[in-house]
């Protein structure tokens, strides 16, 4: 049981940092630009496809990953320039619709370009296989790598936001938009940058996951919804909130799925328990979100406005 708990804890953390990578961009885009971006999940998907495509060309996943990230950034910049900047003075509703339309287009676009079949990528030799972590239990090396990379990015983001001028602008922008302009910053450039960086982070997350879950159309949709849950729980605009909430959602989801039925079995008949567990497990994080919002309507770390 302890062994399983440790493994599932690692799994939950790894899922959590992945969610954080996607959520960080989304929460900044919300917080700083006040734009709801339903196409954010599609950017995760685009990252995955780019990594798969470049790996195919380069013949090496790490090279593919390195190539995919700047292209994901460029893709985000182009998207901002073409569409998103037209949404800044629009209502949330218009933003929801336009990005919903974009999401449909991107999902269908990759299907036209790459077909419906999942595309997978082989792991580099150095990162494949598993290593013992606790007694006889082993853990995949690559998942540890994802965990490490995610934590690294989180650390980098923390440093940037709390130690650099850009970070200061972002924090200011999340709580007071007028102030950023008052500081003499070109707000359009800042927005372009934020959107591009968000797209890049989501793309990076997608690219990293390709060897694990393979690229397929619509893969971003589930992630998008989970990410929404994360940033709403964390408090929209708060990177710290996104980080805490991402780990929370990752752990609750993973541990709930694994231990929920086991716990329920001590309470009721095995058949009943597995049935109830199956019903409750996917709903768990939504229940968590509803419960947190019922108590704290602005999330765990509300940004003062």
């Amino acid at each position, binding site marked *: 049981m302890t062994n399983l708990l440790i493994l599932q804890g690692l799994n939950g953390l790894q899922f959590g940092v992945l969610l954080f990578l996607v959520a960080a961009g989304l929460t900044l885009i919300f917080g700083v630009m006040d734009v709801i971006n339903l196409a954010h999940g599609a950017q995760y998907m685009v990252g995955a496809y780019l990594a798969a495509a470049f790996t195919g060309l380069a013949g090496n996943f790490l090279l593919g990953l390195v190539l995919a990230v700047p292209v994901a950034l460029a893709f985000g910049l182009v998207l901002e320039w073409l569409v998103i900047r037209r949404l800044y003075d629009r209502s949330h509703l218009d933003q929801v619709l336009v990005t919903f339309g974009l999401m449909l287009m991107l999902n269908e676009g990759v299907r036209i370009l790459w077909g419906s079949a*999942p595309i997978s990528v082989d792991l580099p030799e150095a990162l494949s296989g598993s290593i013992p972590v606790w007694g006889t239990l082993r853990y995949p090396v*690559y998942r540890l790598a994802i965990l490490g990379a995610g934590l690294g990015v989180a650390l980098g983001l923390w440093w940037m936001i709390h130690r650099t001028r850009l970070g200061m602008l972002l924090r200011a922008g999340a709580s007071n938009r007028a102030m950023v302009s008052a500081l003499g910053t070109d707000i359009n450039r800042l927005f372009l940058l934020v959107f591009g960086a968000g797209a890049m982070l989501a793309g990076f997350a997608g690219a990293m996951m390709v060897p*694990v*879950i393979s690229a*397929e159309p619509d893969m971003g949709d*589930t992630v998008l919804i989970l990410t929404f849950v994360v940033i709403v729980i964390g408090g929209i605009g708060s990177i710290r909130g996104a980080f805490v909430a991402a780990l929370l959602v990752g752990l609750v989801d993973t541990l709930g799925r694994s231990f929920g039925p086991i716990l329920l079995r001590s309470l009721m008949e095995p058949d009943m328990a597995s049935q109830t567990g199956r019903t409750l497990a996917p709903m768990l994080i939504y229940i968590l979100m509803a419960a947190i919002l019922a108590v704290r309507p602005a999330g765990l770390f509300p940004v003062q406005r």
Partner: protein
Amino acid sequence: MKRITRISALTAGLVLTALPALAEGVKVGVMMTLSGSAAVLGEQGRDGFLLALEEMGGKLGGLESEVIVVDDELKPDVAVNRARELVESHKVDVVVGAMYSNVQMAITGPLTEAGVFVLSPNPGPSALAGAGCNPNFFAVSYQNDQPDEVVGAYVSGKAARTFLIAPNYQAGKDHLTGFKRTYTGEVADELYVPLDQMDYSAELAQIAAAAPDAVYAFMPGGLGVNFVRQYRQAGLETIPFYSTFTVDEVTLPAQKKDAVGFHSGGDWAPDLDTERNRAFVAAFEAKYDRVPASYAAHAYDAAYLLDSAIRAVGGNLADKDALRAALKAADFDSVRGEFSFGANHFPLQDFYVTRVAERADGKFQTQIVEKVLEKPVDAYAAECPMK
């Protein structure tokens, strides 16, 4: 004879050979899942059927054919609408479809009530095999549980404790039920995962913790791609992997080496040694540049079955009883060799356990390990009132 080529109204880019709306022709609706990530199966089915039709010069049983390909989007409500449209607008005689059991259950009732014959190239739901069997429905594939029963029987002698995993929907439960029907060992645990889940780290950790002698999975399509790769990455490949619909020619292009050595079960494999099958596989690969899966093989058979039946009734589609009898006779040369229908219009055929292997040309396919069951009657046939 010169033929008018016409693009079906429903599928741009899909060129079919057919004459428009001939009174004496035969109209066939082909309903497959052609959009969304589940489309790979539907594309196989569609291509298998169209390949057969092309070989027959666009004729079925001597009649000019018009084929209307529709996409069910894997949404039963959409499928029902499109099915009604096939009946009411296009006045089809036969529908070949669908690809997924839920769609099959949704369309079979409305179509057969309208007097249309339905030939399934893949799903054989238990509800249509037993008490709910239907005179106008023919499963050209198998009863859904049969591939699992085959694997269950095969694993029984080899593993004392087996861990089961499937997606949390009806077909998932059915398939595991099929496995348990013939498996005599102990079930270590049974996991059901959400259909839209892509990362199985938590489930794999549970499998590792349970340390079973074997794993049995029904993880179709994209689920299987991810599950198999992650299974390998988690270092679980020392635990023998048995499955149905999890490693097949649809998923192998993505799973590649990760699936090699993994087992599956079914009524067909690309290397099935019949002359008819060798010709089919060669023609399919030449035309579409990919290895056919069972979905294509079944749809291909469905076309020839239809051809044989229409020929037997002399092209008189109005005589439904005669046409039904002709279909039931299954007087055609199947890629699967010996093939006939039981009383419930489900096939009597041999079943095999297969294993994934890499071919000399670098492509991957399932290959037959051994024949496990000879012409079994499915578990529900006895409840069917049709004689």
